[in-house]
């Protein structure tokens, strides 16, 4: 090893340095004590540290200790919109082909989510539509533990909050405009009412199916098939297909 140093002025020149600091008198040599004992203890110490680190990286941890199952409500769905239509602003004179008979605007009212289990209300809350302007789909996500192996009567409702709808209609009426459901057939309220049973640590997922209705899904397809068979046999539903 060399290092730059100087004797006097000018750029540094190289002078020798100890190859290692262990060459310096008083700094080299083994630590005192019996070498064999030192090596043994040193190896044991290193092994203990390594095993300790390995153990720390795999500590058993119980996330859900009991056997409870879970009812999960989770879906993403476009909201039921209200629509207000007005005559075009006469001040905004446009060519004929750019003029419409009326200009319509849709607004999505907050929806209400209600969950009842065994007739008891467990969730009753207003859900705001997504997005800063409130024009994005709704996202619903609720988890609730259920006692496993027991049939629970579950009722889920999701639809425009009547109070919010009335308020929006009232605001529009004050401006002399009528607000009506954008969809033909009126505002849609989704409802699911059925008996649900979950196994230990099993999750019954209530979500929106392909047809837009609320459905229950299960982790175990076999169980779902059994449930479907029970339904066909006319037996009371244990699990939903």
């Amino acid at each position, binding site marked *: 090893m060399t290092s730059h140093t100087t004797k006097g*002025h000018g750029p*540094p020149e190289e002078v020798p340095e*100890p190859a290692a600091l262990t060459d310096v008198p008083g*700094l080299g040599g083994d630590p005192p004590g019996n070498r064999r004992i030192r090596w043994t203890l040193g190896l044991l110490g290193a092994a203990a540290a390594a095993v300790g680190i390995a153990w720390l990286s795999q500590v*058993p941890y119980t996330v859900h200790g009991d056997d409870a199952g879970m009812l999960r409500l*989770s879906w993403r769905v476009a909201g039921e919109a209200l629509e207000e239509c007005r005559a075009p602003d006469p001040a905004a004179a446009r060519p004929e082909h750019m003029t419409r008979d009326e200009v319509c605007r849709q607004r999505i009212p907050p929806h209400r989510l209600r969950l009842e289990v065994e007739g008891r209300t467990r969730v009753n809350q207003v859900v705001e539509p997504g997005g800063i302007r409130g024009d994005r789909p709704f996202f619903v996500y609720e988890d609730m533990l259920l006692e496993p192996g027991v049939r629970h009567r579950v009722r889920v409702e999701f639809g425009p909050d009547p109070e919010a709808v009335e308020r929006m209609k009232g605001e529009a009426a004050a401006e002399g405009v009528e607000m009506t459901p954008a969809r033909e057939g009126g505002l849609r309220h989704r409802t699911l009412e059925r008996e649900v049973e979950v196994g230990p*640590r099993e*999750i019954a997922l209530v979500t929106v199916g392909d047809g837009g209705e609320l459905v229950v899904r299960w982790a175990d397809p076999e169980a779902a098939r059994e449930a479907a068979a029970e339904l066909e046999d006319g037996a009371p539903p244990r699990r939903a297909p």
Partner: protein
Amino acid sequence: MAQRRPFIDAGRRLMAWADAACNRLYGWRFNPLYQTGTVAVLLFVVLAVTGVYLFLFYRIGDPYGSVERITEQWWGGQWIRSMHRYASAGLVVAVILHAVRILLQDRHWGSRALAWMSGLVLTFLCAVVAWTGYVMVWDGQALVLAREGARVLDFLPIFAEPLQRMFTGESDVPGAFFFLNLFLHIALPLGLALILWIHVSRTARPRLMPPRKLSWAIVGVLLLVSIAYPVSMGEPADLLRLTERIQLDVTYNAWLPLVADLPAWAVWLAGTALAAAVLLVPYWLRPSKGHVPEASVVDAQRCTGCWQCALDCPWEAITMVERTDGRAAELAVVDPTICARCGICAGSCAPMGVGPPGATGRDQLGDVRTFLFRVEPGPGDVVVVGCLHGGGGLTRDEESRALAQEGIYVYPARCAGSVHSSVVEFLLKGGAGGVLVAACPPRDCWHREGTKWVAARMFYDREAELQARVDRRRVAMTAASAGEGREVRTAARELQEQVHTLMEPEEAEMAFDLIQACEREEVG
């Protein structure tokens, strides 16, 4: 008067004990506690190498299955994956020890705050990389981590749709998630290299790797543990089933049980408060106003422009500039915003023209004069120039008083590297029979290179060298942590014995009698 900080002092005592224990087992060269920073870098390299192998077999279309297949490769994949995992856990341990050590050694404030803060960024990024790594396996732990991560992140109003949707079971987790995860797991470590460069940017000659033997020993131990105790696979992640038990890596994921029942806002609040507290450590735990040492200054009249202080400065705080006073040589200039106040420049300057105010070579000679006047060492006595931070902890009052009974006197130095070689010569001229320089172990010098430079000046003619006229038989050096007082005392006694052999017979007898008399008095 020293600042009282009970927690820091208690931590230092514990650190001195642990250092001494490891030094006795491994010697200072291979003491892993002195290598925490470089061991972290070594483990990072191990992670990169083993990660390349795992990457070859990992499939984002079948995350759990591909990792399971890797783990089933008993001849390779199993222990390589285990090494990857254990190296990451070891990295956390090394980083924590490194941070605690820096904290206890007061190396976090002033110009070194940059290293502290960049170290925190490195640690945070390591945690993020680790999170992506655990999720890649897509087992029970991965699912819990993914859900908790998504829940906490969803608090931020920056996502078009909640991230939690991916893990509710409505549909399979999209492949894009695993692709992004893998991308981050590989891209972020590349960013770590850049921040590591910032981390060491204010140090001269930074060491990034441990000694080769220690490196191989660490890799070997990791390999043995990986073979003997390989990582197992947990149950695969099941979105529609509650996870019962997982194998939690507490080195990274100890936060998981703590936040499981907390709302997301509380997690953010606690995390932000913790991050702010750790970031503000350089501000909170810096020395109070009256205790902040002053930065080095250069006496332009004495500076000969020899460059030595600039070369020796461990922080690259000194630059050489053209003089404006008409003299031919250059002039050293200290940047006070970078200067770490170690005083090593004072020991490097032969004409004694640079150093912290009150601690230049000239100031040191004044202190030595006072010291000699006070202790009046005899020809059979030894003066231990002891580093305040290490040096066996002999600078403590009770230690130095006890040693004085044996004719061993302790002269405290702020850093052994700051001691001007003339101090050693002056002590000998002032009557001491021998001088022992007790420094910190080289890898643990609080100012990085103090021990190296003082050794080179005393024994290898590095500027400002100990003059040739000084009898080297009367000068010795030792390196010890603050917990190795016994070793330094032994070295001092050995030097004292050697000094006695160099004395004229009559002189030696007198010195011996003096020691005997002191011992008798003590016993009496």
